[in-house]
């Protein structure tokens, strides 16, 4: 097996991975950097983010306000030292991106423009029309081409971490185009491989978001943190889950039920604000968890609109006018017309909540380090945690920049800590084992399970048991089902026996990753007997700070369900309080 020796190897080449790679290359041009991804960098799902990236820049804003919005938005499950670091670094990172050419939208005087976003008290979301993630990703990718020391390995699927001597020393990866295995040796490994939204049937996430990075770390012994917190974005197209950015509401779009009522006022986010004059942090600019939960209640009450794609509410943007929609939300208009046949300039768009983001992920500290020495993580796959129980829109694009860079700096520190020489023979043996597992999949005939069948059962049980509202009973059933599916996974067969670009094999591996992530999420949710942020229990409706002002840590076991431990939340200056998104608040 070919061995590729590097100083730092990065898994994932989306926003966080690219940012990490650039930070490494800038810090020391002599570092050998391997940027390994199962897709070409510009295919990474960062490209689908629309609304923008939060960072304090305007004179009416302050770091404290961003801190308070983030911590309250996360229902006090955020680590406050991490949030503080994050908001401090945020503006620098966004300016850095501007210096690299990101086409941020501008004010008439040439300074960067900001837009309102849900749960934010001040306008602080930098945006590039409604393709912010796309522009961030392409700016980073194009900038990365400047650095010859960043060696890319596009379309390589990382299969296992190599761990010896108590530290992570690399990984094995499958070169998808040839089907050959490679061993990557690295002083430090950064995982930046995105979330796992594909474990649900209805999601804004692209096909590649299968939790591979999370599962890699998880199986190697690093715990997954707060996996029970899954964000539903309130405004997705009902037929295929395509995201319509929160920017729609930031620019003044309103949500209506079938009676034409702005129903959010009935869920603690009123009183009603004038149409076309959005007021920050109330009504349509409430946080995503609250908005998605309001939808659920409206559905229970029969106030939703029945469409052939199921129950919906309406996102009305008509009053914004064609000019503003074309300038600020051109992609939203294009997507609505193309995929739904409806023009937001002319009619309200039916929408419903859709799985969007994993607040949880690989447990890291404030320096992006996981408990496994030599292993770092950043972006959606990681959980620092700055997002707590509910991420505010536009914090995640900034997060991948701030912690992508942070992970790179930590990796350098780790390299400089005087690492003992790695034992090639041990790593080679591990790599052979890993290759053997892939070979076994090829060799196996007469499977009893289909990949798509198991996948759809997994999605179904996640939606049933671990959706917007959950019950102990439903979660227990989901946990049981997932345990069963993990067992049955052993019965799958790869029908495609070709080595070259074998997507049958890819899907099998991805399903394995998703099942592990899904189980961690479901077990975490079952055991968290309270309601907080995006985790809402019908049998435990209140937040319980006594018992659960804690992060959950899920530890992997190959056969048993995840083992859950708890870790105290870091609280520095904001004691848990009431999340008030009513317009009447002080």
């Amino acid at each position, binding site marked *: 097996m070919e061995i590729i020796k590097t100083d730092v190897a990065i898994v994932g080449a989306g926003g966080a991975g690219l940012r990490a790679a650039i930070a490494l290359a800038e810090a020391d041009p002599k570092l050998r950097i391997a940027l390994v991804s199962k897709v070409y960098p510009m295919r990474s799902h960062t490209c689908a983010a629309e609304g923008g990236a939060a960072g304090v820049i305007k004179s009416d804003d302050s770091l404290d306000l961003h801190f308070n919005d983030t911590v309250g938005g996360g229902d006090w499950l955020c680590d406050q030292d991490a949030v503080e670091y994050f908001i401090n670094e945020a503006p620098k990172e966004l300016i850095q991106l501007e210096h690299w050419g990101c086409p941020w939208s501008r004010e008439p005087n040439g300074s960067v423009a900001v837009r309102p976003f849900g749960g934010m008290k001040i306008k602080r979301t930098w945006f590039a029309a409604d393709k912010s993630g796309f522009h961030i990703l392409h700016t980073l990718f194009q900038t990365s081409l400047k650095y010859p020391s960043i060696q890319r390995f596009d379309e390589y699927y990382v299969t296992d971490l190599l761990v010896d001597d108590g530290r992570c020393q690399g990984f094995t990866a499958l070169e998808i185009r*040839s*089907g050959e295995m490679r061993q990557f040796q690295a002083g430090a490994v950064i995982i930046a491989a995105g979330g796992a939204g594909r474990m649900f049937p209805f999601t804004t996430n692209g096909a590649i978001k299968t939790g591979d990075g999370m599962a890699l770390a998880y199986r190697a012994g690093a715990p997954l943190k707060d996996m029970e917190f899954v964000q539903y974005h309130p405004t997705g197209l009902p037929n295929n889950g395509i995201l319509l950015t929160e920017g729609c509401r930031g620019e003044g779009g309103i949500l209506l039920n079938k009676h034409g009522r702005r129903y959010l006022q009935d869920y603690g986010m009123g009183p009603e604000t004038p149409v076309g004059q959005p007021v920050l942090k109330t009504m349509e600019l409430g946080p995503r968890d609250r908005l998605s939960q309001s939808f659920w209640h409206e559905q229970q009450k029969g106030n939703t609109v029945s469409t052939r794609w199921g129950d919906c509410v309406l996102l009305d943007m008509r009053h914004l006018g064609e000019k503003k929609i074309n300038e600020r939300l051109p992609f939203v208009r294009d997507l609505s017309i193309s995929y739904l046949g409806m023009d937001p300039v002319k009619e309200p768009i039916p929408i419903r909540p859709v799985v969007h983001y994993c607040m949880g992920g690989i447990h890291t500290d404030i320096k992006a380090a996981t408990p496994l020495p030599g292993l770092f993580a950043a972006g959606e796959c990681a959980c620092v945690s700055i997002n707590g129980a509910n991420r505010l829109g536009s914090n995640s694009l900034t997060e991948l920049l701030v912690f992508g860079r942070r992970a790179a700096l930590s990796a350098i520190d780790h390299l400089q800590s005087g690492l003992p020489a790695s034992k090639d023979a041990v790593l080679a043996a591990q790599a052979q084992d890993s290759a053997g597992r892939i070979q076994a999949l090829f060799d196996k005939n007469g499977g009893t399970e289909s990949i798509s069948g198991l996948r759809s059962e997994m999605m179904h049980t996640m939606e049933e048991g671990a959706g917007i509202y959950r019950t102990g009973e439903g979660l227990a059933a989901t946990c049981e089902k997932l345990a069963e599916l993990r067992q049955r996974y052993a019965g799958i067969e790869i029908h495609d026996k070709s080595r070259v670009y074998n997507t049958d094999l890819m899907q099998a591996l991805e399903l394995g990753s998703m099942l592990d992530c899904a189980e961690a999420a479901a077990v975490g949710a079952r055991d968290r007997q309270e309601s907080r942020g995006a985790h809402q229990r019908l049998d435990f409706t209140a937040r319980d700070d006594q018992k659960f002002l804690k992060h959950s840590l899920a530890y992997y076991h190959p056969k048993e369900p995840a083992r859950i431990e708890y870790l105290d939340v870091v609280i520095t200056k904001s004691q848990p309080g009431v999340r008030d998104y009513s317009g009447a608040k002080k």
Partner: protein
Amino acid sequence: MSRKPYIREISKTNWFFSQPRYMRYMAREVTCIFILVYTILLVFALKNLAQGPEAYAEFLEALNSPLGILFNLAALVAAVYHSTSWFNVTPQAMPIQRGEEFVPGNIIVGAHYGGWVVISLIVLFLGV
């Protein structure tokens, strides 16, 4: 090595039949031939003119033949097609930005047509 990328050969001689838009492109390019021949014809006209009125009259007579008229008509059609196809793409090749908007394409195209008419009128006026 199990990889063996397959390369689909493209015909060097008749690739443009594979797509209507390639045919349109080739039609535009072919019009050049008429314009080339017409230019050569003009050079001959000058040469004959320099040789005296008799030679020039002979040249004009040759042009008056059915073949000459047919060629002139064909060259006219070709020139019009070539010119208009160029006019229509000028907004792409030479966009004009005024502040926060681009000048609409039809104004740029229209200006070209306008210029064409004006020049044609001048030539006509000088000719008559």
